[in-house]
């Protein structure tokens, strides 16, 4: 459906623009065919209106042939053919109309005189068609620019949201207070470990805070952050949390928005492994296949267990950010199989 028909205001403006064009048509008919003012008006008004709508069809052409230098020749010939066909149709309608009007005694000689003006009308038809086509290209380009701006804005909002969520997680009792409690437990008996836990925790907090200023980081940095987080959780969980990793270093330089993986890793620990008596293994796999990379976060989950509240929050944020960043080129899949909950992110590998 042409956008003008869904936004009636724009159709009105467009039709107003056709009034002077129709006047030009009338003038040309008078000059080239020697029509009287009345004859020119009787012919030009319906023809102008008809062509205004006929030319809207160029929108589909504009959609089918986006500006692309590689197909310049094909595009140019398609546009030329389309404008010739449209102008021919227009002239044919004009002639038909002239014959119909000729039934009235006052317009008897109209078809004859229109024939003289034929080439001029045809030429005008081609020009008008190309003019409307050009207008469509301009409108499409403006629309695309607005779209891109909107997407960029959405991306910024989502990044801020993730950052806020990450910050809240940093400052929530579950993580920070329990980590501090672990340090309190280590201080007297294993002071060296207490010191390293302090360093880990500070490092982690500092890194997440610094990330907020950047719009994209490398996968390597994101994974390093996940490692710090998991090292802290491992101190808390002890034997209940084990790690399995298979990281493909050819994927490390791919750019990702900061804290993209963090919600997934936190969910896997908090709602996956933390909810099980015996704990389990969190696995983190990155792979590169040609120009795509895949990142998999997997944790054991009890099939029957009800979905813990809040588990979906992190995942939906990741989904929205991937969609905002990569559109259809990015993909997030999540599901339960063989007693394990698995989230896979697939992205184009762009540094």
């Amino acid at each position, binding site marked *: 459906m042409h956008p003008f028909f869904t936004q009636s205001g724009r159709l009105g403006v467009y039709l107003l623009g056709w009034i002077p064009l129709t006047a030009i048509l009338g003038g040309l008919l008078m000059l080239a065919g020697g029509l009287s003012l009345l004859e020119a008006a009787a012919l030009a008004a319906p023809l102008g209106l008809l062509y205004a709508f006929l030319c809207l069809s160029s929108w589909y052409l504009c959609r089918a042939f986006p500006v692309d230098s590689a197909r310049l020749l094909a595009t140019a010939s398609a546009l030329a053919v389309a404008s010739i066909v449209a102008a021919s149709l227009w002239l044919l309608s004009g002639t038909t109309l002239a014959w119909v009007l000729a039934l009235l005694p006052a317009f008897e000689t109209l078809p004859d005189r229109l024939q003289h003006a034929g080439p001029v009308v045809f030429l005008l038809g081609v020009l008008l068609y190309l003019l409307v086509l050009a207008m469509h290209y301009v409108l499409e380009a403006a629309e695309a620019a607005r779209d891109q701006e909107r997407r960029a804005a959405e991306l910024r909002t989502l990044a801020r949201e993730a950052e806020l969520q990450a910050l809240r997680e940093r400052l929530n*009792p*579950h993580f920070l*207070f*329990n980590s*501090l*409690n*672990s*340090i*309190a*437990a*280590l201080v*007297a*008996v294993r002071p060296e470990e207490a010191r390293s836990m302090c360093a880990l925790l500070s490092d982690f907090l500092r890194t997440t805070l610094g990330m907020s200023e950047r719009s994209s980081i490398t996968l390597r940095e994101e994974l390093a952050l996940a490692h710090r987080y998991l090292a802290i959780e491992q*101190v*808390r*969980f*002890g*034997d*209940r949390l084990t790690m399995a990793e298979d990281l493909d270093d050819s994927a490390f330089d791919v750019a990702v928005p900061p804290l993209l993986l963090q919600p997934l890793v936190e969910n896997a620990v908090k709602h996956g492994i*933390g*909810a*099980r*008596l015996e704990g389990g293994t969190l696995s983190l796999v990155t792979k590169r296949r040609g120009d795509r990379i895949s990142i998999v976060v997997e944790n054991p989950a009890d099939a029957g267990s*009800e979905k813990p509240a809040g588990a979906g929050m992190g995942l939906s944020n990741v989904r929205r950010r991937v969609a905002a960043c990569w559109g259809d080129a990015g993909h997030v899949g999540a599901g339960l199989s063989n007693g394990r909950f698995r989230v896979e992110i697939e992205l184009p590998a762009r540094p």
Partner: protein
Amino acid sequence: MPSPPLGAVLVDDEPLARSLVRQLLAAHPDIRILAECANGFEAIRAVAETNPDILFLDVQMPQLDGLEVLELIDRDAAGRPAVIFVTAYDQYALKAFDANAVDYLLKPFDRARFDRALERARTRLAAGGGPVALPLAPRGMPLARVVVKDGVTVTVLPVEKIDYVKAEDDYVLLFSGGRNHIKKQTLASLEDALPRERFVRIHRSYLLNLDRLARVEGSVAGGSMAVLIDGTSLPVSRAGAQRLRALLGSP
């Protein structure tokens, strides 16, 4: 006067959190650690087997949380074991005191705070007949699961798995998939805690999970019977029939 030795059980799913309590208890030679537990199930078994005076109880634990553990352990008339909650969350404090806990330690805490909690426990135990444990006040949200205990075996029943509940004096019998579990609670208090849109009191002695209802039949005696999907028939009182009609929206 030296106080009599006291036995303690430590419950926390984080080993370091247990270690901290253990370290702080080392300064109190009169307190002996009877058991350390990493989850609620172990805690219930340990309490039954060792009969401790003091229970250090974490709230957030996998599958069976500290409040549910407290609901399932037997406390004697003197309120023994005295329960000290140890948690990083402050939002359970009210419920903990409703359940007559002695103290509520927020992680991380220092020695002075820990010793104060212990002092309160000693005082409570020395007083002998402290206030008897009250049943847990209903939580703000409807229950998502019901915990029951048979000896030291704990069963966690998600509410959607409960077919119906029958009152037996001061106990309730929970029927689930052809098995039943007994729990010391009144039917009225359980009815209050369960989600109202799912469970309906069809009779003075019966609470029915609406999802299990196949049809309602008139019986020869004049009353009506609720027939469940598995074929079980339960009596429906006149008031129960009205409640059923209201929930099912039929005339």
